[in-house]
């Protein structure tokens, strides 16, 4: 049971209703390449926001975990070019890929369990870049630079996965499920202990909670979420290459989460949407060659001016206007 106030339920229901009805108004390009893309990358950013806000870990390994799931599903996909030795139907490959990402998340958690803040950032970044370099140099499994192509996804009710409506609704379904999963988990005893550990690990340990195990479990859960994102991203890109999980992809997910705001799970999707819109339309603003400068400047401006992102900015704005007084004071670890 997810406990929310009536207003929050209404807001959520209204949001979902709007998203459900978007195909009525929007052309396919917006459905798939803007909203669909923002939602699948938003799921990966969500896994980072979950760890950052409720666990206090700004992990840069989330793109890598999405990549683990993406490579896993690509190796097992029946349509893969080149076909892997373990080809199996999608309905078996997808859960196994998400499982692989969950296990990989637990392993990242075990490696990083004794570190925090800045050290955690460095170690997870090193792991992420290392994994993409490994995928790039390994031919036997990862197919080197070329990656694995033609991962078109399963047919759903006789329709190809890449049909705009199918992709959009699946992406929406996964994004909403993961969003609600995060909101649910942080109110379970596990989620509450996780937040207690974030606030003071010594006190939580003194009460008798096993701090390390909770941290590892939170990384595994984040791996599960990122894994779903990774599978969908691989379907969206019709394949996977090492560069799609490299340093820039890792930084892009961090940018999405930070721009949107690390203070609330919704921030991940807001940030992903802003990033996607800018990535798509930057060409008409400053020429697509300088997209990185634009996104870098926006990112820098957000970090300098509003460290809790667009979400935090909006919250302060509404508080200042006085329509919605702030009920809770969020503890910001990121600022």
């Amino acid at each position, binding site marked *: 049971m997810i406990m929310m106030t009536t207003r929050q339920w209404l807001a959520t229901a209204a949001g979902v209703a709007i998203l459900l009805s978007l195909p009525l108004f929007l052309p396919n390009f917006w459905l798939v390449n803007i909203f669909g893309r923002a939602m699948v990358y938003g799921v990966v950013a969500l896994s980072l926001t979950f760890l950052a806000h409720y666990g206090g870990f*700004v992990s840069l390994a989330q793109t890598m975990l999405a990549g683990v799931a993406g490579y896993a599903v690509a190796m097992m996909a029946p349509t893969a070019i080149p076909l892997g030795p373990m080809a199996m139907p999608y309905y078996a490959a997808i859960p196994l890929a998400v499982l692989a990402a969950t296990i990989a998340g637990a392993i990242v958690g075990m*490696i*990083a369990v*004794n*570190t925090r*803040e*800045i*050290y955690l*950032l*460095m*170690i997870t*970044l*090193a*792991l992420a*870049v*290392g994994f993409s*370099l*490994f995928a790039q*140099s*390994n*031919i*036997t499994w990862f197919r080197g630079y070329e990656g694995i192509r033609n991962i078109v996804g399963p047919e759903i009710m006789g329709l190809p996965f890449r049909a705009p409506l199918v992709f959009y609704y699946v992406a929406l379904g996964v994004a909403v499920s993961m969003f609600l999963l995060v909101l649910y988990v942080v109110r379970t005893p596990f989620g509450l202990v996780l937040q207690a550990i974030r606030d003071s690990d010594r006190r939580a340990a003194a009460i008798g909670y096993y701090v390390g195990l909770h941290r590892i479990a939170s990384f595994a859960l984040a791996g599960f979420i990122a894994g779903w994102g990774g599978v969908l991203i691989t379907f969206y890109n019709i394949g996977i290459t090492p560069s799609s999980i*490299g*340093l*820039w992809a890792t*930084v892009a997910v*961090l940018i999405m989460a*930070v721009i949107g705001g690390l203070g609330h799970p919704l921030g991940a999707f807001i940030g992903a949407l802003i990033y996607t819109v800018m990535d798509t339309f930057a060409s008409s603003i400053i020429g697509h*060659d*300088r997209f*990185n*400068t634009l*996104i*870098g*400047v926006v*990112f*820098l401006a957000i*970090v*300098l001016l509003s*460290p809790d992102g667009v979400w935090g900015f909006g919250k302060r704005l509404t508080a200042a206007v006085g329509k919605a007084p702030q009920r809770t004071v969020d503890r910001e*670890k*990121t*600022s």
Partner: protein
Amino acid sequence: MSLQFILTVTLNGLTLAALYFIVASGFSLIFGLMRTVNMAHGSLYMVGAYVGFAVYDPLYASDVWASHAWLIGVVAGILAAALVGLLMQVVLLGWMQGQELRQALVTIGLSIIIADQLLFLFGGNPFRFFTPELLFGPTELPVIGRYPIFRLFQVVLAIAVGIGLWLLLNKTKLGIVVRAGVDDRQMLAACGVNVPLVAATVFALGAALAGLGGVIGATAQPMALGVDARFLLMSLVVVIVGGMGSIGGTALGALLIGLAEQWGQVLFPTYSVILTFVIMATVLAVWPQGLLGRKPT
């Protein structure tokens, strides 16, 4: 596997470790005093290489300056990186001192902008410095045989940088101030030391080392876009393994990683990256502070 082969691979590892040490010592120096994780350190490496080359290239083509072109390129690369580093610290990072995560995010943003602007200003073509006359060509070594002089020079330079940093930190007034700042910044400021000035100096020095590494690295191997990621990764791993903020630890980490990379490529070519990360994970599991890092008090 002959003795000659073993020694050659080991020497290759040593020369690589030398380059890693020069770059990572700057990273470690900045981290040691200011707790700033400079995610733009790889970008400073690129700034050094690109600006150095922009100065070097026309000089090399001219008749008068050709013989000094490389040295001038080195100086230009060092100065450019130091200047960019100084600006980063003074304009952006200085006033958010203590907010480590925010500083890391700021430097990530800067690294994106710097990489893109370098691409815009200098184009994406790979380039390489020609080795200066004095350091050009192979030399005869016992057992190993012919070996490039420049790679040996890298080791000499790294040792010089190491000794220089040691002298600076242990034998000068600035060194005393820096070491005091590592222990307790507030107390240092209360003693009347201009801490922001010291911080800016140290940041410029750390950035200068990245710039020096950039020119040296672009002389040893062709330089192309994307090396910022590699050298940032390498700096991170070296200081994580060696221990943050310790020059000795950085040297030890660079040695381990340099040797592991070269031997890994010989023994299991496509899995050599894994070896680096196995070392990192093992060190973290046993010594969370790195091999020579201090325990937080």
